[in-house]
């Protein structure tokens, strides 16, 4: 498929950085529409979201444009071999991107990962939490200004009970009585370990 239509319809432009595959830079406010279009349009039918990658251009030589970008990779199973990437630019002052987790089920975790590693918020995401890093972690490690050697003290376990209740509610259950949370922080087993 020729992705020119996309560029004309949604005010996007072909990404000059993509020399080996097709990539369209789309304005942030049209992202959801573009993705919905790509998913349903019979000429491309991008039915699988392959990957979402955040990029921080802070130390990129001679970079023009916003500091962050998110690259969405799609592929089509209807037309084997057809792939496209979308890119949205995100400025440091307004770290918000519309979610596409209502269109693709796996966007939920991918967006959580980008939020975790770059601190970019996805508006409308049902459950925006950290995915890979710890619940107590401070900062966003894949930003270029996060020092790779930095260490953090993390003490507690991730509580999953609130998420479990949320999941029960989406399945149509109504919580009458919550179960009690175990406070691992209060236990004495952490004392005497390497806490500074």
């Amino acid at each position, binding site marked *: 498929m020729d992705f020119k239509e996309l560029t004309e319809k949604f005010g996007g432009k072909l990404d000059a950085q993509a020399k080996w595959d097709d990539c369209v830079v789309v304005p942030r406010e049209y992202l959801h529409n573009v993705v919905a279009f790509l998913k349903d349009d019979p000429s491309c039918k991008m039915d699988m979201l392959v990957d979402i990658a955040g990029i921080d251009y802070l130390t990129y030589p001679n970079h023009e444009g916003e500091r962050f970008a998110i690259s969405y*990779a799609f592929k089509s199973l209807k037309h084997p071999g057809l792939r496209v990437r979308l890119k949205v630019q995100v400025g440091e002052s307004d770290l918000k991107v519309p979610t596409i987790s209502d269109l693709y*089920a*796996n966007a939920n975790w991918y967006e959580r990962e980008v939020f975790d590693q770059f601190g970019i918020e996805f508006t409308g995401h049902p459950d925006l939490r950290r995915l890979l890093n710890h619940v107590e972690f401070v900062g966003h490690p894949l930003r270029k200004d996060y020092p790779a050697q930095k260490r953090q003290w993390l003490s507690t376990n991730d509580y999953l009970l609130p*998420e*479990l209740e949320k*999941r029960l509610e989406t399945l*149509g*259950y109504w919580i009458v009585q919550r179960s009690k949370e175990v406070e691992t922080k209060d236990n004495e087993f952490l004392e005497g370990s390497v806490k500074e």
Partner: protein
Amino acid sequence: MIVRDSNGETLDLMPLNVGPSHPATHGCLRFMAAMDGETIVASVEEIGYLHRGFEKMVERGTWQQVVPYTDRLNYCSAIMNNIAFCRAVESMFGVELPERCKVLRVIVNELSRINDHFVCVAAAFQDLGGTTPFMYAFNPREEIMCIWEKLTGARLTNSYARIGGLSRDAYDGFEQDVLAALDSTEKALKDLHACLDRNRIFLDRTVGIGKISAEKAISYGWTGPCLRACGVAADLRKDEPYYDYETYDWEVVVGTQGDCNDRLQVRLAEIEESVKIVRQALKRLAPGPVDIVDPRIRVPAHKLAYQDMEGLIGRFKSVYEGVRVPEGEFYSGSECANGELGFTIVSDGSGHPYRIKVRPPCLTQFAAFHELVEGGQLADSMAVLSGLNIIAGELDR
């Protein structure tokens, strides 16, 4: 916790934490289930217990130094990850590999796939309480491991591929070793099928368990054997062929039900196809160079460094500064044992990667875990988990 369901009935559910360091959770996975007796009513997963910051680490080294890190993604088939990464970078350079390199890569790729699938099926059986198939599967796996030892010097983390070639050529007697390993693979397959196919206990535990529809699997971004078990014939080796995969005679294996049994049977059938591919590739293995000759991409041979100045400079610059990958952004996916392993690469034209994002095949499969286990029994969740072949190394990176 006490809940009321849509019929107004009150249930007393018990939240049960499983993992992260439970032997059946294969490394570091955790999920919390709301249990109604033995039945899982709802489940949520938690990952990140093996998060080592792969993507941050690789930004500090040169392009060649990424290769050993890729070993640690899916450690059951390390060479496949090396090749997938090198293939992505080579496409950015736009170079064509020598014929022998391509054939060798196909052979080690498919042997790794055999290895990976054997581990998955064996571990799945082990989790269900069967120890015999584990031994059947691990005999040929050991032979392949011995080939890895001779070929690369390591059993698990091989780092065999290089950008623009391979770390070394095959050794004398490689073909005979591979043929012997293929023979015992075929024998083990026969034994495994005798154990699996009509085993009442196994079928009761796996047939109809952890079912998922093709539409849902696609929406979750499933790839590889798990997607093919749902009846979708999607394989990058056929759809976007590389290394002349399209010229070999083999079939894409698909399942019908998308349940736990299908996922394991598809893997066993894929081993058969891989054996077919390796046998054909061995016939094509003609003598020739395995590396491309370009000091800007592949470091010059060690003996050249002692013989002439150009070789010395090429080696020095390649090791200290790294290869300079052309500036730009690229996504490349390769068909690995678990599915599509993808790399989104951002290069600023220097010797160090600016950003590499890994697309692990496991992540999408584990993201759908709650859909598979809800409504089933707790014991079934273990059968589902091992059938998905979640490798924590690539899941958490």
